[in-house]
């Protein structure tokens, strides 16, 4: 019947098929064009796939971020090696900041030796006191007295000293910075007269050397009293024997001393920062000297009392009793007529005892001594600093002192 493919194809060409009606065809055409225009605006499968991929990526990133956030913070290791004296009082705090690790060594007293290795960018190792901050690399030594920076010595490397209200000081290897000290020389007088305080105010006999020293102290005192902050708070740098000598030395140019409260030198550390000794022993010596000194003062021997009280004050520890010893040493020196030394002792006391109840009395005493030398302006400043004293008698004395010198 069907012998080859051509016959089959001819037969297949006769297969019937129903041609659609024109109306149906037009309906399909219209529906097609509408569907085509709508599908143009409809998001394609590719768009859905891209959105899905993006959403999956965002989810993965969020998961990774969450894992990183929940990851425990690594232990923050200290970047500094610290050797402190036995008497040193210090706290150490290491915190992680957004930029790195910040290590703060808060020193209140004593001598601290720091070895700081190479720091990464953003890391800091700082030594902080109440009034200053030291930051450096290498090996440097910081001495603090009464919560104030007294000395910085760079053994190797460098350090930057930032004191409140002053310009920063940069120290290179081998350099030493010491706080400027303006106090009197507490060495025993070569000649002394023992007039009463009343007689000393009216006039006393003193050696030429004492007079020269008194003039120098007066100059220095006047310069610092002119400073408003110094005049109102009387926060002078603390005593240091070598620097007090330097401050009183007539060969030193005053501008150098007045330029800043800080000075740089390449000298060895000040002798006033004595080697640490057991606190109990020092305290015992302090009490012994103080007790003897007060007994001598009450017994009417101010010269001997001043020596004992001076020894108590120089005991080398930061103690309120030492400050009191300095005050009573000044009283004893005044009674013994050694006014220059009395002035220095009073300044040292005012510097070391910022919260003592005897500050007002000491200020009035100092003002009277300065006024006797004729420096009315400086005396007035000290009187004014005692006007707000809690003791009404002291405030009245300060007021009377101001009124008497108008």
């Amino acid at each position: 019947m069907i012998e080859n493919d051509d016959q089959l194809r001819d037969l297949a060409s006769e297969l019937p098929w129903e041609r659609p009606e024109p109306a149906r065809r037009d309906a399909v055409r219209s529906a097609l064009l509408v569907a085509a225009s709508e599908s143009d605006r409809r998001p394609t499968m590719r768009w859905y796939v891209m959105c899905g991929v993006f959403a999956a990526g965002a989810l993965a990133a969020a998961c990774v971020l969450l894992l990183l956030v929940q990851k425990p913070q690594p232990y923050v290791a200290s970047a500094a090696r610290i050797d402190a004296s036995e008497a040193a009082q210090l706290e150490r705090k290491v915190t992680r900041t957004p930029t790195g690790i910040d290590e703060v060594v808060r020193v209140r007293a004593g001598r601290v030796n720091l070895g700081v290795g190479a720091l990464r960018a953003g890391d800091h190792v700082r030594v902080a006191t109440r009034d200053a901050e030291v930051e450096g690399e290498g090996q440097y030594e910081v001495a603090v007295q009464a919560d104030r920076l007294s000395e910085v010595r760079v053994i190797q490397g460098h350090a930057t000293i930032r004191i409140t209200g002053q310009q920063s000081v940069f120290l290179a290897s081998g350099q030493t910075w010491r706080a400027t000290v303006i106090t009197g020389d507490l060495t025993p007088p070569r000649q002394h007269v023992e007039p009463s305080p009343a007689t000393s105010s009216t006039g006393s006999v003193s050696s030429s050397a004492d007079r020269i020293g008194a003039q120098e102290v007066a100059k220095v005192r006047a310069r610092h009293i002119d400073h408003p902050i110094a005049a109102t708070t009387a926060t002078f740098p603390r005593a240091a024997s070598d620097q007090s000598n330097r401050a009183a030395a007539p060969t030193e140019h005053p501008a150098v001393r007045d330029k800043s409260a800080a000075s740089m030198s390449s000298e060895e550390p000040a002798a006033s920062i004595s080697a640490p000794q057991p606190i109990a022993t020092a305290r015992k010596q302090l009490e012994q000297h103080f007790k003897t000194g007060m007994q001598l003062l009450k017994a009417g021997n101010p010269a001997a009392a001043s020596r004992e009280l001076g020894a108590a004050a120089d005991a080398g520890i930061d103690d309120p009793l030492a400050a009191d010893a300095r005050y009573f040493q000044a009283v004893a020196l005044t009674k013994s007529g050694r006014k220059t030394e009395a002035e220095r002792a009073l300044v040292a006391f005012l510097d070391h005892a910022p919260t003592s109840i005897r500050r007002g009395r000491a200020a009035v005493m100092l003002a009277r001594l300065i006024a006797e030398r004729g420096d009315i302006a400086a005396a007035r400043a000290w009187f004014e600093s005692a006007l707000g004293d809690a003791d009404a008698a002291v405030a009245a004395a300060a007021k009377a002192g101001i009124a008497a010198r108008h």
Partner: protein
Amino acid sequence: MNATKPKPEGGQLVPLRRLDERRAAVSDISDEALLAACGVGDTAALGALFDRHHDAVYRLLSRLLRSEPDEIDDLVQLTFLEVWRSAKRYRGRGAVRSFLLGIAANVVRHHVRGAARRRAALVDVPAPACSGAPDAVAMRAQLVQRLAIALAQLPLDLRAAYVLCDLEDIPGVEAARVLGIRAGTLWRRLHEARRALREAIDGGAR
């Protein structure tokens, strides 16, 4: 119906954004240009393609899938919609008509993927018509009827190969490309389809 228009002089393949803006007669535009215009979103070009190739697509679908006219209409619309979406993929390899019919064959393949639909399609074979024609004509009509039944009973792959190549005169290479199969596979399917149809017709005659 010869829906394929010869290419204009110069083989212009410029996409038409708006057919009416060109103020050109639809008959002057080649299938390739219309398809390219579809690729850039010209629905007027799609309408023109529909007008040219609707009958061929409808015929192919009705032969591949014996079903209700409404369903065929739906598949026609689906085929041209797929042409609209796939127009950008046309690279000029083969005739546009082959491209369209290949898409139609694939649409049918997806449509009858379910077994239930396939069974329904097989059941929907029209009964042989009884006519009072003379013997020769009646005999020819019976052969055609047997062929229709045999074609409907062929597997879809064989049926598609046979309809595309023998009924719609699509070259074998193009048919293989549009169906997504190798040429050898197409020839094998075509051979099996012809043999099965001949056997069905001869068997029915005996």
